[in-house]
């Protein structure tokens, strides 16, 4: 379980706009074979961390190393070579709506390899079999349920046998059965591929079951981290609030704003 480091974020800072930093200082690492959960409230920058790892956006300070290489130093071609070893699952699957399930899974194989159609056919059916949807290969994305879409996207994400999988909220909006199915699949596929995974999620209970390590982000920093056992036993206020889902606690319910009374009075003017 403790192999070489696959992802290393060091003092990472980032903001989409200059005066509004999203991430202030993030330190985390993922080692080969690990599944790491990234947790935090909505809008705290979890997706942004995944985009930084994929090199879609560049850090304003600090360093992102993926497979040992500094992402900021890569040119376009190197970036694309790095992404070939990366599988990303978007929040709602992001399946190509004009392609069948089969063609969606075949897409990365057709675009990024020189394999023949027979070989591609075999590989696609294997990947679909792995997520239990070989029977749906000729359906269009709009004919799938949310859970099925997520599984097709998973099959597409593993089409090129990635060494690192990034999952953006794979459990959101799923019924408990689909949710457990995806959770189990993520663990099984990660171990079968010998890959590492980062899961962005709000679902504490499901992730405590399947992941090896958890990071909690708030206000642009890692505020807590640990193995599932450590998290369950943790007495830290933030972790307890998050694990139990309480509204008020160290994480404020309100966005920072002007004084409530003067805001209301200003409206009367």
């Amino acid at each position, binding site marked *: 379980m403790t192999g070489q480091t696959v992802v290393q974020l060091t003092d990472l800072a980032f903001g989409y706009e200059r005066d509004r930093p999203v991430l202030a200082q993030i330190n985390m690492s993922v080692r080969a074979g690990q599944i790491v959960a990234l947790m935090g409230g909505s809008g705290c920058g979890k997706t942004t961390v995944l985009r930084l790892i*994929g090199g*879609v956006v560049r850090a304003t300070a600090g360093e992102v190393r993926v497979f040992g290489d500094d992402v900021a130093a890569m040119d376009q071609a190197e970036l*694309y*070579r790095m*992404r*070939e070893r*990366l599988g*990303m699952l*978007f*929040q*709602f699957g*992001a*399946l*190509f*709506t*004009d392609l069948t399930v089969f063609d969606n899974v075949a*897409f*990365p194989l057709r*675009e*990024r390899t020189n394999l023949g159609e027979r070989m591609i056919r075999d590989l696609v059916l294997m990947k679909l079999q792995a997520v239990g949807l070989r029977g749906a290969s000729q359906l269009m994305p709009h004919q799938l349920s949310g859970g099925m879409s997520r599984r097709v996207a998973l099959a597409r994400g593993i089409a*090129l046998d990635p060494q690192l999988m990034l999952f953006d909220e794979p459990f959101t909006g799923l019924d408990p059965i689909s949710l457990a199915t995806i959770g189990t699949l993520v663990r099984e596929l990660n171990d079968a591929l010998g890959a590492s995974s980062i899961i962005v999620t709000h679902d504490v209970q499901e992730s405590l079951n399947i992941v090896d390590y958890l990071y909690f982000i708030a206000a642009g920093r890692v505020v807590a981290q640990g193995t599932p056992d450590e998290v369950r036993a943790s007495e830290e206020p933030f972790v307890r609030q998050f694990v139990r889902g309480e509204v008020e606690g160290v994480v404020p319910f309100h966005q920072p704003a002007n004084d409530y009374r003067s805001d209301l009075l200003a409206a009367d*003017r």
Partner: protein
Amino acid sequence: MATEPQTAIEPKADRPGVLGTLRAALEHLGGWVLRVLIRLGYIGRFAVAVVRFSGPSFARFGLVMREIYFAGVLSLVIISVSGLFVGMVLGLQGYDTLVRYGSANALGTLVALSLLRELGPVVAALLFASRAGSAITAEIGLMKATEQLAAMEMMAVEPIARVVAPRFWGGVISMPLLAAIFSAVGIFGGYVVGVLIVGLDSGSFWSQMQSAVDLRDDLLNGVIKSFVFGVAVTLIAVFEGYDAAPTAEGVSGATTRTVVTSALVILALDVVMTALMFRGI
């Protein structure tokens, strides 16, 4: 309420003088010009990227064929029907005017020249913008809004090469063909009115047309126009889709902009090209 003392309220700002108003107007105008220029520069860079990433479109021509089907083949019905109507109206109006000067036999010439030089390229392009251009914008915009383009990028596939360039070339290839079909059907419409309904001599209808229409001056210039319109409309359509804000309003706004901008650009380009091509006549 009315009796409350007004001390808390700040005094109104001084009324701006004439100079102030002028300055504000100039600043407004300058800001607008700057925004337009920035956007034009952005479109220009986008166009360069589309051409630069066009390799796969031609290496795998199936990608473009598919877009020719969606942009071109699916526009055939509206193009043909409109062409027929426009040609018939030209026949009716043209006959009504020409017969006063005793030159009703020139009807074929009038219909053919109007269609080949102007109405074919222009009306076909306007229809193409609202039928195919809006669909291209909406499709690309929705692919962006549902993160399909981002997913592609994360799979190390360039969306401009895989999504934008094939649609661009599909539109550029379709547009001149659609304009030609529009003109051909329109001439047939003129024939239906002039010969079949009004009863002009079929032989003189065609022979006058044949001797008056010049291959280079009329036919080729019309083809050039429709090609230029095709480039303009399709570029606007793919750009607006790619540039759309990734939300429902963003996509609907971009679709509207495609149709409106295309119409204005088509008509403006038509003035310029007509002035350059036909001023000697």
